[in-house]
């Protein structure tokens, strides 16, 4: 009988360990990319507001623009990153499933 990758994983063989680590590494890579995208934007915000005081002198509807910048736009951005991440993570798991249990 041919041993499938699934068996290797279930029996925790050395091969199984390789499959598992590859999955973990790909998931961690995806999460890190999402984190960097998020961190780059939000992390830059306080410094940008500090270094560009001009932004604090612009008024929109009588309210300083800097307040608008941190009060609302980041939230849709979070949700967008989250949705993209969920879709990619599901795709990674799908390809792992195909690898482990090839549908023939």
């Amino acid at each position, binding site marked *: 009988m041919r041993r499938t990758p*699934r068996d290797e*994983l*279930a029996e*925790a063989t050395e091969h*199984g*360990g390789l499959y*598992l680590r590859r*999955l*973990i590494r790909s*998931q*961690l890579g995806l*999460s890190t990319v*999402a*984190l960097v995208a*998020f961190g780059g934007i*939000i*992390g830059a915000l*306080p*410094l940008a*507001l*500090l270094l560009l005081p001009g932004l*604090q002198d612009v*008024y929109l*509807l*009588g*309210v*300083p623009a*800097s*307040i608008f*910048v*941190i*009060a*609302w736009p*980041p*939230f*849709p951005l*979070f*949700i967008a*990153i*989250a*949705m993209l*991440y*969920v879709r990619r*993570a*599901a795709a990674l*798991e*799908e390809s*792992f*499933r195909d690898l*482990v*249990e090839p549908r023939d």
Partner: protein
Amino acid sequence: MIAIAAILAVTGATIGLGLYGVRLARTTSDLFVASRAITPWWNAAAISGEYLSAASFLGIAGLQMKLGSGALWLPLGFTAGYLALLLFVAAPLRRFGAYTISDFAEARLRSPRIRVLAAVVVLGIAGFYLVPQLKGAGLTLGEVTGAPYWVGVLAVGAVVALNVASGGMRGITYVQAFQYWMKTFAIALPACLLLLHLGGLPERAAMFGHELPTAGDAGLTVELAAPQSVTFPAATAYSVDGAPARAAEGEELTLPAGEIRLPPGAVVPVAEGIEAQTGEEWARPVESSGPTSPVFVYSLLLATFLGTMGLPHILVRFYTNPDGPAARRTTVRVLGLLAMFYAFPLVYGALGRVLVPELYLTGETDSVVLRLPEAAWPGLGGELLGALVAAGAFAAFMSTASGLMVSVAGTISFDLWRGGPAHVDARRRRFRLAALGGVVAPVALALVARGLDISVLVGWAFALAASTFCPLLLLGIWWERLTARGAAAGLVCGAVAATGAIFAGLAIEGGHPTVNALLTQPAVISVPLAFAVMVAVSLADRTGRRTADAQLLALHAPEGLGLGLEPDQEEVVGARMRT
């Protein structure tokens, strides 16, 4: 009167629904099987309901009024925390079937001793988080009924402990989901009406003007119940119980108890600990130094971003997701629901500057959300909206405090109280005793901590969680070489660094502003420290190293392959928690 009725109604509804829900869960089917039918939307509303506490409902607006727009980093961090949870924790933890962080630590590291250590940290975080909820309760009841501060603290402490002890509020998703919508409605409706009533934003542009907060066109009258130390940012004439007096610019003095009157347009004196700011200064989200310096902002963002995943009452909720992908979908919806709620508190913080400047004098900026409706609409309309806001605030304390108390009681009765008979009845009795006993310390602390801002107190809970459980979860899930000894060393170092800095910040007065900022919000130092210690000790620990393949497989294997924990096995984990 209306407000008291509204508060009683929301408290009664919470207790009633909780008790009803328990009966339903016990008689129809097993709580955990039933929970598999809960959709991501219900789950997300429940998580948000448990998460939005006094800090979100009252604290953000209060801190914003006091400090300025720098407080707006708080809702950003509170929400972003769920992004961190989504990216690194939600799906693996759900697949692992760990119900609490202590469960996770013990099962992942195969060490019963780490469970006890994790349990102690849970109590620390929950304690820091419970105190501001009780403070909010004391403040709200005082605003609404004029009752002394301690009445509300004791009342809510007692109600929550009894509620948890009697079995209500235990993982009842629908009650928490109801609380989310209640809170959002209670904060959104008055905020929208306020903006409409005041003619929209452009009309109110004056509030961001170039002045210090001033008394309105009719002057300002404040009843002081106790003497109050204040600073006059400008020379002002005022009167105390009708006797005229004058203060020079920059003068610091103690106003006696009694009726303080300020003439129309006078600059309002500010209580000790508040800095008088012009509209322009107030509107700045970051400044080069002081309480909104970049160091502080980054430390705060880091604490909230990484601390959310370590809150004991939040992770429990993820267990009601059917599987890993559902846990992810739930988290995305939580982000949406929180974003909706957080669109509103800043309306109160900004308008409070113009409409209730007397809070600068009394120092109680945390009550701005409660005061604003009646200040904007004297009469029945304001009273009704005020009642709605007070009821929403109570929903916030009740749901968060109950969730925390369940964690505290569960931790004491299950993780720390070992030995003796493990019979179901005995365990249930222990849980009840733990709920009643566990509330004592937070109540005592809340009575002492009256002068501290709600948001600052909650910030500490996040700092502690980010410095302890965040490294434990992240390394435990993604790094196979973590050992029990390494995890323990990191937990201890992170906890000591975070709490030590916080208490040092309380004790030390008038240091360098940057040092002060770091002591009040130490995450930027304590989190990397905890990570470094965990990694270093794990690498050096040769005896404790064991293969973790089975654990990693359970954490990461997708469902439906027959790998990892399948639903049947999970019943074993669930059964333990059902006591």
